[in-house]
């Protein structure tokens, strides 16, 4: 277990280095001139040559890439993500301010799309080829074809503009100090973006779950359950749910990245002050420290999701536990011997290959 965690920590560190390096390279290649982008066209033209040089030094535009990246990495080791030039605040502070609304939005959309998608997927799979299946599948195909920002615009037009049920944007009512924002007000502002992201994220997990349910129903386990006189829902609760929930959970854990990607666009449409909106601002303004900081946080979030899925698999699936124990035994040592009963050595593990594949997916 210790070895497993250490290995993954190392992977996470490597991921941070690679992601941040790619961000620095991309910003370096970007044609956006940070000085021009941040002071405005008119001010830039009327500015003196000396002032321009001073600003360039401030933005670090003249320095070569390895120097800038090396300095940022050195700062990172001390927990310093650098200064955000756009917000004129430390990057950690900008991210901390915006993480709360963003995480609220992401977690609601993640859990909501997961649960809704799973329930709909099960319903469609159990009614394979009958009308509920056709309707749910059709809806999923439509939802996957719709870009999330377009859906956000339509929801805004219908529910915020025409019906007036929800505010048209921001995380709180205009003119209210951030300390005075009530929970009800925050939730009211959060609702429409959260609904939009939830709807946009339903289709993959729904279609995947449907496929798994159909596969289960056509498989040997369901066939034998049928022959033992178990009805469709009886066998689903008894056998299907466990077998179908695992891959769905893995998929949902791995989809955090996609939901975050959707959140960037949806936050823009709803002017919702989250990490996504900050990422757009940072990208357009060549604010490399902030962009790298957000990229690193997001990468760790996605990594954490996948890691959680791996751990969950190990906890829930007995075959996976067994495979780990066998690995430990193969390494030898007292621990390996203790966790394996002697009779386990007699036979090779059935489906060991499949379990391994499932774990790494």
């Amino acid at each position, binding site marked *: 277990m210790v070895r497993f965690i250490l290995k993954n920590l190392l992977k996470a560190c490597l991921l941070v280095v690679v992601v941040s390096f790619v961000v620095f390279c991309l910003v370096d290649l970007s044609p956006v001139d940070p000085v021009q982008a941040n002071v405005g066209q008119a001010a830039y033209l009327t500015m003196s040559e000396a002032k321009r040089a001073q600003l360039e030094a401030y933005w670090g535009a003249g320095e070569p890439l390895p120097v800038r990246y090396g300095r940022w990495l050195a700062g990172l080791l001390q927990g310093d993500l650098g200064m955000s030039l756009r917000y004129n605040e430390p990057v950690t502070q900008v991210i901390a301010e915006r993480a709360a609304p963003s995480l609220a939005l992401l977690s609601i959309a993640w859990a909501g799309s997961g649960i809704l998608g799973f329930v709909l997927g099960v319903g469609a799979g159990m009614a*394979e*080829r009958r009308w509920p299946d056709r309707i749910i599948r059709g809806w999923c195909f439509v939802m996957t074809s719709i870009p999330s920002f377009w859906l956000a615009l339509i929801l805004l037009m219908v529910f915020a503009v025409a019906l007036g049920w929800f505010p048209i944007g921001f995380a709180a009512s205009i003119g209210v100090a951030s300390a005075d924002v009530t929970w009800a007000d925050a939730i009211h502002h959060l609702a429409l973006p959260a609904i939009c992201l939830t709807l946009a994220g339903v289709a993959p997990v729904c279609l995947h779950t449907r496929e798994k349910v159909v596969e289960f129903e056509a498989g*040997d*386990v369901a*066939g*034998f359950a*049928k*022959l*033992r*006189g*178990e009805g469709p829902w*009886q066998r689903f609760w*008894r*056998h299907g749910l*466990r*077998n179908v929930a695992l891959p769905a959970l893995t998929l949902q854990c791995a989809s955090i990245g996609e939901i975050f990607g959707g959140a960037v666009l949806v936050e823009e449409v709803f002017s919702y002050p989250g990490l996504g909106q900050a990422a757009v601002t940072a990208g357009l303004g060549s604010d490399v420290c902030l962009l790298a900081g957000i990229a690193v946080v997001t990468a760790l979030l996605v990594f954490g999701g996948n890691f959680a899925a791996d751990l969950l698999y190990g906890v*829930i*699936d*007995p*075959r996976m536990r*067994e495979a780990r124990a066998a690995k430990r035994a193969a390494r030898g040592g007292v621990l390996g011997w203790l966790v394996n009963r002697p009779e*386990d050595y*007699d*036979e090779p*593990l*059935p*489906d060991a290959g499949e379990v391994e594949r499932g774990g790494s997916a």
Partner: protein
Amino acid sequence: MSEEPREKAIRSSATAPHEAPPHRSGEAHHHHTHAANSRHPGHHHLLQVEGLSAAFEMYAPGAPFFEAERRLVPVIRDVSLGVHEGEVLAVVGASGAGKSLLAEAIMGIAAPNERIVGRIWFDGELEDEAGIERLRSREIAFVPQSIACLDPLMRVGEQVRGIPRGKGAARKADVARRIERQRELFRRYRLDESVERLYPHELSGGMARRVLLCCALVDEPRLIIADEPTPGLDLQLAEAALADLRAFADEGGAVMLITHDIELALAVADRVAVFHDGTVVEETSVASFASPELLRHPFSRELWHALPEHDFAVASRSVR
């Protein structure tokens, strides 16, 4: 001859041909001959299948995509067979001939695009669809061929116990009965008490086979349909598997053993139904396989010739 069978026949609203007066041992009646221990309590078979056909509705193969017509592709044609109490009937046929489909059709399980017609009597009663559904797991139990049929994520003991029936107190009583029955079966089949806490993948081949049999026996069925119970087992385990089925029949139960292995069928069964080309071409006692002259259908004779020893005698049934 008592009045009882006639009453039953009237109640089931159709008179089965076999409800006629009792027949003597060895006498050929509706397509088959008897073995010494085929019994007719109440003058009828435990399971009687008449004119069972199954067909799949599918698009014509080879036709252009948009012009393909739906048509019925028959897989089982007009099958008739009977299983008596106290006997093992082996259904023998080539692999992929549709034997497993036959078992499912008898138990009333159909794929969504499958059409099944035919008549089934159980214990002298003509059964409709609801009747067959009621029979599943109560009177007729199925032994699948492999451990892949068990839920990989559920402990073996719970799977053997199955789903309790009834509501409230009756359900509680049934749960207790099932636990008791499962432990009793495990003791009987020399499975350690700790086995009920294992997951299917942790079972050895021999344990898996006994667990599958326990699944079938937990509801105390009168008929067991076993689908290829021996492939993948070594000779010793295969013999043990067959001995367990034989013992069930000797205690008064009935067994329908589906297999592609004619040698095995002759070793353990009382009668053999030869399955060929989607139908049962001959249903006869094992003794008939002593000599090809006793077999009526050419395919049965082919099977006889395929046996490694031509002087195959009834004596080799001692395997049981």
